[in-house]
């Protein structure tokens, strides 16, 4: 007699197949507990995650038996998970704020510059910080006013919760509630696509991402900020004002595997990866001083 529940759904061959699959699933499920290897979990910024993911792969390759799991969910998740011990290391796409420095210790692994972008056909070559503020507040709404075409400005803003938004607002001393956005975007790619498709748009994205897409022929251009050209070089040498450090955060002084991985992520061995992800490497010594600076 077959049990009614089993024969309810499947005839015998199909049933056996599924049971077999379920059984092997159970087996693999049980077998995993035995892997006594060391494991590191990182969570946080979706901007940092692809970079750390690649660094982790190289680290795993060089250190067999070690597993590094990278999760995302945003910078605030990174801080929360590191604080709760759900993650060994948090990832944030900004520096630590003053009030966070008591709880966390930060390690800069790369830098990301945020550049203002407009469509390639836009004749405007530069806009002052004050003009950016006026445009984002909605007080200036036509390109004429800043020396451009007779056309309305499409203001592109980032969605709430993005660290790019925070950095942008902080630099220009804006409140998000003051911003009169026409389009709200989530990520760099979406921002680039929006501006590339709209000759009258003004937005802001990672310089690395913008440079890459410009090289790929995307019809956008980067505007200087405070008269400093938006390039990876100016971000690297620290002269570009609108940039952010990509930071690993921990709650306790790093030791063992955690420390080793952070050192690795800051070392020259991963600079090629950092560049490949369109970010700007910081030299080991520079990272050191910066983390010291934040600690002080």
């Amino acid at each position, binding site marked *: 007699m077959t049990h*009614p*529940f089993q*024969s*309810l*759904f499947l*005839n015998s061959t*199909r049933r056996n197949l*599924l049971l077999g*699959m*379920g059984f092997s*699933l159970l087996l*693999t*499920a049980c*077998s*995993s*507990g035995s*892997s006594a290897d060391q494991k590191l*979990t990182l969570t946080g910024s*979706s*901007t940092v*995650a*692809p*970079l750390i*993911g*690649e660094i982790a*792969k190289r680290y795993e390759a060089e250190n067999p038996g070690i*597993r590094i*799991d*990278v*999760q*995302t*969910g945003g910078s605030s998740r990174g801080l929360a998970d590191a604080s709760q011990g*759900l993650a060994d290391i948090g990832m944030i796409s900004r520096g630590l704020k003053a009030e966070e420095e008591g709880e966390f210790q930060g390690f800069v692994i790369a830098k990301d510059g945020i550049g203002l972008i407009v469509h390639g056909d836009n004749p405007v070559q530069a806009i002052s910080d004050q003009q950016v503020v006026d445009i984002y507040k909605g007080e200036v709404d036509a390109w004429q006013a800043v020396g451009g075409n007779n056309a309305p400005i499409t203001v592109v803003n980032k969605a709430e919760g993005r660290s790019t938004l925070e950095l942008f607002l902080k630099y220009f001393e804006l409140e998000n509630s003051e911003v009169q956005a026409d389009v709200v975007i*989530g*990520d*760099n*790619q*979406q921002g*680039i696509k929006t501006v590339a498709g709209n000759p009258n748009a003004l937005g802001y994205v*990672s310089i*690395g*991402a913008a440079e*890459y*897409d410009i090289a*790929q022929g995307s019809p956008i251009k980067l505007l200087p900020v405070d008269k400093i050209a938006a390039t990876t070089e100016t971000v690297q040498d620290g002269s570009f004002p609108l940039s952010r450090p990509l930071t690993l955060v921990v709650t306790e002084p790093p030791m063992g595997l955690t420390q080793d991985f952070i050192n690795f992520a800051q070392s020259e061995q991963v600079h090629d990866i950092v560049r*490949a*992800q*369109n970010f700007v490497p910081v030299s080991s010594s520079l990272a050191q001083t910066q983390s010291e600076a934040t600690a002080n």
Partner: protein
Amino acid sequence: MQTPSSKPGLDWAAIAIWTIATLITATFCCILLDILWHGLGQLSWEFLTTAPANAGRDGGINSILVSTGLILLVCLSVSIPLGVGTAIFLAEFARGNPQFSRWVRRSLDILAGVPSIVFGLFGYAFFVQRLGLGFSILSGGLTLACMVLPILIRAAEEGFRAVPDGYRLGAASLGLSRWGTLQQVLLPSAMPGLVVGLVLGIGRAMAETAALIFTSGYVDRMPGSVWDSGRSLSIHIFDLSMNVPGGEQQAYGSALVLILLLIVINSFASWVAQRYQLGL
């Protein structure tokens, strides 16, 4: 008298319906063509069988496919028995208590409309943290099961309700057992509803990102077991198109694979159901 005056009205309705239908189909075809156009070049045996590299810009999607399959397997092996069981209970056994069924049904309808991010946060709080399953395929699959269950139950229940009462009366008047009737008569007749539920559920599960990013996670390594974190196709596509500059081509390739996979799974489901329905 009424016929001539109602005729043009009918025609307008028909035109409106046809226009809407054509628009919807055209939009769908545009999206499909776009994905085909951009994704077809990516598609190769290589793409399906190699590991992702350089944040997904290079390499293939083999680990992503395995993770997706495992997540779906966990999801379905929990949600199908539970969902069909609940639907059977609601449609066949809870008839004497319409108030209770109505209450359950209303709750399910509300649940079915809850945004997936809410399920994601629930899964994160419950499976990942509370039950200590961590970021794992198991957490992701179980979260998806919670999300898919209301859809599955409602569709399956509709399937059972659509079964003519004559079958139930006929079976009872032959003195057939409830289980026998269920297996041999009701289940095959309710199969169309079950398949609709399954197809909708799989579709929702495969397209899901918000509920998975917090549960099954982002790790694109080949999973060793369901306890490992694994990145689903949908999250891979989302990440490639949103967070990885230059990941667009691979995103299209992955999207094409996702669509093909959905088509294959859905036709397989209907095929199995059809065979079952014919009593073969």
